[in-house]
């Protein structure tokens, strides 16, 4: 299997693609019998330092319904200067520029190592990147101050020609005009009144009755001059904007006792969307929403301003007791769609102790490829550094962000052609794409054939270039009846786990939690039945091949994960976790499903240990990475030593080093991860230890007393089943003929 592992790894490195099945069943029926759907995780903009983009445009298949891009899998007749589309078999003439083509003089796109290739499109106007800040002013003074500083800092990180705009909101919404000297000028909107995009543009004076010329060119500069009042190149209004941010005051309207401040998040977003919609449609733009509390008025409000009415909880939602939920969700959904249509993405930075309405607003980011970052306060490094990381640059000094992405998938022998729009993409954005084999059972794909899939990603690079990245991959077809072992061997359990988890999360968005779990369990059991080796009704005989061995464990942790479990999580938190889960790449996703636990001790170098309560030992330091949190847990003894201050003593230098080791490792993770995880330093008995305890497999609990008091770990006070119990049940069910 090593070969498969290598193959998989190689494929991922080269194309950013991981399939659940690397050999494809040849008919629809068989595909469904596989339980785990034929699907892949695709990272469209996977960083490829070794892949220089080519400076010309792709050659397309001439069939209007196909338009696939010339790729290494195409058959080429060098003499006739013809190539056959491997998707529709259309024969195409090479364009004149390819006149000198021959089998020794191939263009890059025909070389096998360029199964992924990036073209730079030269034509079309280059519009600068646009950053529109939407800032909540109903913050505590400190928070606002911290936020202002971060924003000011961010100005220095932007490319000089990037356009920036500023909208603030509280009880009202203010759109700042940045072009004027002297007097600072802003347009103010009532926070309670929904306005259409057109109205907003009218009110901002963005519609010019004149300019009936439809020729695009003349209209372009004019549009620019109008909109320039609100969106200005950073280099021009750097000082202005810095001053403006500096003078930004908290929302002045008094907040009576027992009330929440009136916060018009909904309108602010609507105006931001409307503003960009009118001025820069189909141009890469980020709307960055910074909010410190829930929307409390106007459309999109999530909770009333009475403090005595708490913001909705899962309990309320289940009881259908969340008054504003549906309306607000619908509102933000509509906004998100508008924004997506125009290729603008919306980031949400929600920093507050209480919920801020992410549940309702999440679609804004989810549908547009924007970020969501959640935290307690803007005055934390969590925010500051995460925000800074948004503007990190790649090896070329380019931003690790792209805009207005449009992904097109062309398959052969699979479902129809599809297109998606992902307004904001970064190199880590990973999509789960689920395919359907359309061939009927009685007309399977011929044996030995290869199925091909082409991903065409068009996007606006942060350097404002328009680029097209084309990834073409092929996999073998196999008859599930006769070649099941091939298929089985080509199973990528990691990818499958993530893909199934994504399906589960998707279902959880619309279904009740228990239903999803039940569905997940059923799938798992079916998979085990399909691929397990066992004797009927004999659980002990149950075996899974190596390529499936980890899969149940992933499922066990997935069931306990915050993506499917809402207990102890607020609706906002759930939304936040899910948001990230469905967009991170495979590795990160796996961490989210099954956190990684490292153990540090005097007994050897740090080692990964089982995510199990048995790993919690007094003389160890544990480092747990759940993606969202980094927990450093000092075992009981270690904690005592630390308290006693041994690390300060020269003779215990080694202890000091031991203490330092996990910190350094954590730092490394903190440096690279986006969003920055919550960093927790705790110890045995500490209240924050719960983060660790809730994650580990409760192999020892107050219920299984046999382990009580032994030096084998820490008991977890929970009624959750342990992995052992889970596996036992699984085996039993898998072998049962009843199901």
């Amino acid at each position: 299997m090593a070969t498969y592992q290598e193959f998989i790894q190689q494929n991922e490195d080269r194309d950013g693609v991981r399939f659940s099945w690397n050999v494809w069943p040849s008919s629809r029926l068989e595909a469904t019998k596989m339980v785990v759907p034929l699907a892949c995780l695709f990272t469209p903009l996977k960083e490829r330092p070794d892949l220089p983009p080519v400076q010309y445009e792709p050659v397309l298949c001439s069939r209007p319904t196909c338009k696939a891009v010339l790729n290494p899998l195409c058959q080429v007749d060098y003499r006739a200067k013809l190539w056959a589309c491997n998707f529709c078999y259309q024969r195409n003439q090479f364009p004149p520029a390819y006149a000198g083509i021959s089998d020794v003089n191939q263009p890059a796109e025909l070389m096998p190592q360029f199964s992924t290739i990036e073209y730079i499109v030269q034509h079309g106007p280059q519009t600068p990147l646009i950053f529109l800040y939407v800032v909540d002013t109903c913050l505590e003074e400190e928070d606002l101050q911290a936020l202002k500083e971060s924003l000011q800092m961010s100005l220095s990180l932007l490319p000089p020609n990037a356009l920036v705009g500023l909208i603030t909101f509280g009880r009202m919404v203010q759109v700042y005009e940045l072009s004027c000297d002297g007097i600072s000028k802003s347009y103010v909107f009532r926070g309670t009144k929904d306005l259409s995009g057109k109205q907003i543009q009218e009110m901002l004076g963005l519609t010019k009755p004149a300019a009936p010329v439809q020729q695009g060119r003349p209209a372009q500069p004019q549009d620019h001059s109008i909109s320039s009042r609100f969106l200005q190149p950073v280099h021009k209004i750097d000082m202005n904007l810095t001053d403006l941010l500096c003078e930004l005051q908290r929302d002045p309207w008094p907040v009576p006792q027992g009330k929440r401040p009136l916060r018009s998040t909904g309108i602010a977003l609507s105006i931001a969307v409307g503003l960009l919609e009118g001025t820069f449609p189909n141009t890469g733009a980020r709307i960055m929403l910074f909010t410190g509390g829930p929307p409390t008025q106007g459309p999109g409000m999530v909770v009333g301003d009475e403090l005595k009415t708490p913001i909705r909880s899962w309990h309320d939602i289940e009881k259908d007791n969340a008054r504003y939920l549906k309306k607000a969700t619908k509102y933000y959904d509509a906004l998100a769609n508008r924004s997506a249509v125009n290729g603008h993405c919306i980031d949400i930075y929600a920093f507050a102790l209480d919920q801020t309405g992410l549940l309702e607003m999440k679609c804004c980011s989810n549908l547009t490829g924007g970020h969501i970052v959640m935290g307690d306060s803007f005055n934390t490094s969590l925010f500051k550094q995460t925000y800074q990381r948004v503007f990190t640059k790649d090896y070329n000094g380019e931003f690790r962000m792209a805009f207005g992405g449009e992904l097109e998938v062309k398959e052969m022998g699979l479902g129809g052609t599809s297109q998606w729009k992902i307004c904001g993409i970064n190199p880590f954005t990973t999509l789960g794409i689920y395919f359907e084999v359309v061939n009927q059972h009685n007309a399977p794909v011929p044996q030995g054939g290869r199925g091909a899939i082409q991903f065409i990603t068009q996007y606006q690079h942060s350097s404002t270039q328009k680029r097209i990245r084309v990834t073409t991959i092929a996999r073998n077809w196999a008859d599930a009846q006769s070649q099941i072992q091939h298929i089985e061997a080509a199973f990528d359990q990691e990818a499958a786990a993530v893909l199934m988890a994504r399906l589960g999360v998707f279902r959880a968005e619309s279904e009740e939690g228990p239903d999803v779990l039940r569905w997940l369990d059923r799938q798992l059991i079916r998979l085990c039945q399909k691929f397990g080796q066992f004797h009927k009704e004999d659980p002990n005989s149950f075996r899974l091949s190596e390529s499936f061995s980890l899969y149940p464990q992933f499922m066990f942790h997935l069931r306990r994960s915050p993506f499917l479990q809402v207990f102890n999580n607020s609706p906002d938190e759930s939304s936040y976790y899910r948001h990230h889960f469905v967009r991170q790449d495979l590795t990160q996703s796996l961490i989210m499903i099954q956190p990684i636990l490292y153990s540090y001790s005097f007994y050897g170098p740090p080692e990964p240990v089982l995510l199990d309560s048995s790993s919690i030992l007094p003389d160890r330091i544990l480092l747990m990475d759940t993606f969202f949190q980094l927990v450093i847990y000092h075992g009981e003894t270690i904690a005592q030593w630390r308290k006693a201050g041994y690390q300060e003593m020269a003779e215990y230098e080694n202890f000091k080093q031991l203490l330092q080791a996990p910190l350094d490792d954590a730092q490394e993770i903190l440096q690279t991860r986006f969003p920055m995880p919550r960093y927790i330093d705790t110890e045995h008995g500490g209240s924050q230890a719960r983060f660790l305890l809730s994650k580990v497999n409760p192999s020892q609990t107050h219920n299984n007393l046999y382990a009580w008091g032994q030096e084998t770990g820490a008991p977890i006070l929970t009624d959750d089943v342990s992995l052992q119990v889970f596996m036992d049940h699984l085996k039993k069910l898998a072998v049962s003929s009843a199901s």
Partner: protein
Amino acid sequence: MNVNQQAHMTSPYRQPQPALQGYAQPGYGGPPTQYAPYNGPNPGYQQGPTPAGYSPYSSLPCKTFPATLASDLSSNSSSPLDLGPVRPPPNSGPPPVSASQGYSQYTQGDVQNGPPTMSSQPHRPPVSQSYLPGSQPAYHQQYGAPHTSMQQMTNQMSGMQVSAPPPAVSGYAPHSSNPQTSVSFSGAPSFTPHSVSSQQNSPAASLTHGQPPSQSPFPGSPSLSQSPFPGAPPPVSQPQYSSAPPASSQPHYSGAHPLPASQAQFPGAPPPPSQSSPFHAPPSSFAPPAGAPRQPGVQPMQAPPHSQYLTGPPLPHQPMQGPPLSQQNHAAPGMQGPPAQPAGQGQGVQPQQNGAFGQMSRPQPGYGGSYPGPQNYGAQPPPPAAPPQKRLDPDSIPSPQVSALPAVQKTRHRIDPDAIPSPIQVIEDDQANRSSEPFATGVRGQAPPLVTTNFQVKDQGNASPSYIRCTAYNFPCTSDMAKQSQVPLAAVIKPLATLPLDEAPPYIVDHGETGPIRCNRCKAYMCPFMQFIEGGRRFQCGFCSCVTEVPPHYFQHLDHTGKRVDCYDRPELSMGTCEFTATVDYCKNNKIPQPPAFIFLIDVSYNAVKSGLVDLICAEMKTLLDYLPRESSEADSCIRVGFVTYNKVLHFYNVKSSLAQPQMMVVSDVADMFVPLLDGFLVNVNESRAVINSLLDQIPEMFADTRETETVFAPVIQAGLEALKAADCAGKLFIFHSSLPIAEAPGKLKNREDKKLVGTDKEKTLFQPQTSFFGNLAKECVAQGCCVDLFLFPNQYVDVATLGVVPSQTGGSVYKYTYFQVPSDGDRFLNDLRRDVQKQVGFDAVMRVRTSTGIRATDFFGDFYMSNTTDVELAGLDCDKAVTVEFRHDDKLSEESGALMQCAVLYTSCSGQRRLRVHNLSVNCCTQLADLYRNCDTDTLINFFAKYAYRSILNSPTKTVRDTLINQSAQILSCYRKNCASPSSAGQLILPECMKLLPVYLNCVLKSDILQPGADISLDDRAYLRQLVTSMDVAESHVFFYPRLLPLQKLDVEGDSLPTAVRASEERLSKGGLYLLENGLHLFLWVGANVQQELLQSVFNTPSFGQIDPSMTNLPVLDNPYSRRLRAIIESFRAERPRYMKLMVVKQDDKLELIFKHFLVEDKSASGGASYVDFLCHMHKEIRQLLS
């Protein structure tokens, strides 16, 4: 005619009508004397009359007039005299001449013409040309030196006019003189006057007699033509006149047509002197008149008018006379004398006249012949008598008859303007008589001096007339009586009026936490009308009679008269006006109010920027902000200010003191206005000075290149309102607006200027707002105490009727500067703005008028809002705003306790203090109509009428409104005539002394741009003026309707006295003169074409008329006494009025003169408004119709 008769009858009249005699007597007396002289002169008529007669008249008249005055005033009852006597006196001196001329001229001319035969042609002309003929001696006189004498005459004439009859008489007089037969008739007497003519008295007498004549006529007629008349006389006095005069006159004419006539006229003039004497001693005078002389006197009077006609018609004489008379009647109802004739002439006359005119010349010769025929007389007399009776009065009849006669109009013109009541005279007299002594308000029921009079007020328990003026100071006791008289019972209240510098502002009384003491039942405030009883333990309310306990802390013992011992220590017990500090109970929401705020909302659309307005406002604002109103005790104003600019969106400014630069916040969502900021919008001027100045510097720059032409309006008000709401305070919005708000927004308006509607039943819609939106908005404003002042700078229609709704309902003001240009209107605007910003103003005011039982305030006029029937709510109330309140009976009033009213205004001062200003006024109650009519204030009445009418046009066709006004006035006057005036000929117009000017002022109201628009006045202007008048006080409305016209030729450059004004008529303008005219809104300097170069030099710094720049709005500053004085006068005028008046220089015969002439309100107006004379005739007709 009458005169003659009177003269004859003298004895009889005296006896029967003492009162009349009183008045009449003087007049009569005069005539008689004249007559006497005339008689003598008969032969000498020709001689004496012309030359000698005039000069003497002048002198004589003077005497007579004063006399008449005295009599009039003294004896109110002198109904007939009213007009005659009063006016004559004033004018007497100078006017007589002109007057006499007026009449005499015509008459003279006519007469002369007539008599001389040669004059035949002239006859016609005179009529039509009346003035032109003036070129003849008569006219010349008016203008020329003779003026004096002439004027006197006119005055007298005026008196006469009232008593219309004179003309007839005059006509007759001459006749009488002419015909020998006359001898037998009054003729003899008439002649005698002639002889006397030298004495001049006779003529004067005749004039004044005008009135008396009517009375006298009867007697006279009988006496004279006893034989014929006898029969006639008995029936009706009037008929008698008619009959009588003709008879007498005819003979006269026949006697000495040519000369005599002229003489007769002259005699008319001369009479004045005689009158003078007679007036003094009416009885005595009468006596003489009784004698032959009277007739002559009378004759002369009548003669003139008639003579004209007559002259023309000579032949027809008798018959002619008839017609002419009738004509006269028509023309000037006052001229009743004639009517009689018409009656007699009846049929024949008209045709004759027609023919007569043409024939005029011819007839004359014939006159002699015809005249001779005494038969005519005989015949005529009888017929006249009969018909008149039937028809009631020939006078009344006139209309139909007249209508038939084309000549009528001409006759009307014949009435001498100087002979009718002169506003100037009345004003001057009042100023002369009443300005020296302070007016003490302690005496109940005493009418204050006129508004035009400078006088000091001593508050002795009733509010100063500066605060309250009533239409009547003797209220009828019963509603029946009130209904009968039709005199509106109203008060014009100006609660925060600015007092003259030498009067102390109201005392402020602080009763501490308990607040002012009030009646338990009606809640009236403690005032001098509260009666303390039971040793001071309780007090009885003067309004509702309820007895209330005196709170212990307020207890005080009573003295032996029942007055509290501390009465004079407590302003509320001794003063008509005082002010209480209000407690928190009197505050909105029981919360001490915040200091008010001023918000300036500036239109920055293209038009406003282009006209330089925005620059101007911003520049001015910097200094203006130092002069916000403040309490006298405070160094700085507490008022906070805020700024907004707008076109079709609004820009708010954050001018918080901590900012380095102001911040602009644009609100484009005009459909749903809100205030985008809280902190930093309303600021203290001193704290934010730097930021504000920076803002004011930048506003013009920011919008210098604007191309936005559309504006919104309602959202602007909403913005201010919301800002005040947010700040939880009251305040005032200053909106500077340029165009019709057509931008998409609430309250969006469309251009609906449709001049075709003018004059139709739909005209009222032009004054109604386009939409009810603003009404509702105003309501909200009032609730918040948000007063809106609107400055308009339109270049075209802006729909003032709609835009003005909010200002007018919130107690604000509207200012309008059409075609605003900085050079020409900048000064006016800035001065208005300064004054508007600086003037004392109260906010969030509620005014309530309480009255004693039996009477109730039923209707209110002014700029305010009422949510119920009693409380007048004013978001803002400034020192210039007046509210007119109408009272109605709901029960009987008692003479003993009088009628009390208390006007309490609760308001927030400019420093945020809640205060109560209380004005108390008591008036008498009367059971006699005469008392009512004796104590009226015509100026206030006009104020009421104007406001009433101007409001009515919102709901009724303009014509209906005009008719209503005329009817009510006619009823008022006829009621007086019927009930208070001594019996007299219906042909006489008898006006109450106090209402002498009612017709002329009423005419001004009727022909105002609102009720009778000319073609050139825009709908906006009409709506604007309509709203202006709504809040005017009496002084303003007075000058607005009857502008002040000052001759400047003989300016007293040293002293500070103003020249005596002249009447607003083109006739009064001399080509060589310089005149200043003001009406409170406009200020004109009229330059005659023949003004002396020196004068031009000293005023305009140019020697040539042609070089005067008509576009100047201020006179050049020249260092000569005349220029200094003139500019000082102009400044003083401006200072006197709430609005700054731009000076317009009008050169005679220049295009602009048309505008100027519009304000010569005694003349016929271009829009068809009646001249004073015509209107007076019309009123007379109306009155007579009512009397019949």
